């Protein structure tokens, strides 16, 4: 509701207004008066002025500029950038940690594997040495067995030598020495041979 101001009061205020002596409150009264409805013809220029001033008060800054201002004074952008840097450093150090752990575990496993392999190799070597020793001992045994007839041959050689010497010496002394020598030889021959001879003789018979 408009207050019922008299024209005289308004004219009085307008005089003060033109001398720049009105208060803000009085200027507000004038504005209300001239914007509230029709006025006398002689006051129409004032109506235009107060209408113009009221319209000027309604002008606002374009909204697009608000976004522009936000980007110009953008601390949030810096905050986002800092957040990205921090999170990526954390991620990088985590990756580095995981990588090192994997490498360490891998190294330990490899060490264990190598130790196990060395142990196995040693066992294998021991086993093969055992087999070798066994083989050698087998060979030695067989060699001994093989050498036994050789001993007999050696013995025969010795006997032969002895008998030849004996025969030679006895031949000079005793003409029946050959017979003695043959008897001597028969003594040295193994019993088996004698047995075989007897069996052969019997089968031939």
């Amino acid at each position: 509701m408009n207050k019922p101001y008299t024209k005289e009061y308004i004219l009085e205020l307008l005089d003060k207004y033109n001398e720049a002596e009105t208060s803000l409150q009085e200027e507000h009264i004038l504005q209300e008066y001239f914007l509230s409805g029709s006025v006398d013809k002689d006051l129409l220029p004032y109506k235009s002025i107060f209408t113009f001033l009221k319209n000027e008060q309604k002008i606002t800054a374009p909204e697009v500029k608000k976004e522009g201002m936000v980007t110009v004074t953008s601390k949030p952008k810096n905050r986002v950038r800092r957040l990205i840097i921090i999170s990526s450093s954390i991620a990088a150090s985590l990756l580095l940690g995981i990588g090192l752990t994997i490498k360490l575990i891998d190294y330990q496993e490899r060490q264990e594997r190598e130790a196990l392999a060395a142990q196995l190799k040693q066992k294998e070597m021991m086993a093969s040495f055992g087999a070798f020793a066994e083989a050698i001992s087998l060979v030695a045994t067989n060699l001994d067995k093989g050498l036994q007839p050789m001993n007999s041959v050696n013995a025969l050689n010795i006997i032969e030598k002895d008998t030849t010497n004996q025969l030679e010496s006895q031949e000079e002394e005793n003409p029946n020495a050959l017979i003695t020598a043959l008897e001597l030889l028969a003594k040295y021959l193994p019993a088996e041979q004698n047995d075989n001879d007897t069996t052969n003789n019997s089968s031939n018979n």
Partner: protein
Amino acid sequence: MTIDEYTNKLWPIRDRIFRLARRLLVNEEDAQDIVQDTYLKLWSAKTRLDEVSNMEAMAMTVTRNLCLDRLKSHNHKYTVYENSFPDSTSTTTTADNQIHLKDLQKNLSHLISQLPEQQRTVMHLRDVEGMEFDQISYISGQSINAIRANLSRARKKVRETLEKIYEHEQALY
């Protein structure tokens, strides 16, 4: 001063900053640039803003100074903002009268833009922004007596010109 304090104190007065720049430069695009420049300048001096008691008056002072610098430079283009006038708020006028009022608004805008800078600034800060004289004194750097004198001259000049227009039109019809 934090970003929140800065935004809370200075963002609400961006329309005032824009209107003053627009009144002084008479160019919408330049006025938008000035708004940005003003906020940039205030942000760069944010450490000193804590000592400022009247942030709004400080922002308006920065705006005025930036506008005066722009006016001195050769790049400033003078263009009248024809499409930026809202229609008359009066509902009692006829269609013919509305056109008539719209023309008057254009004329008034042009008329005010022709006033000397000091008169223009004072009239804008008082009659559009409704500021007290001490605030206007802080922003414009004028004494209160000088402000009263400039304001009186500006108001009288506008009124006299409008009266002439009305007399001329009445003579035509």
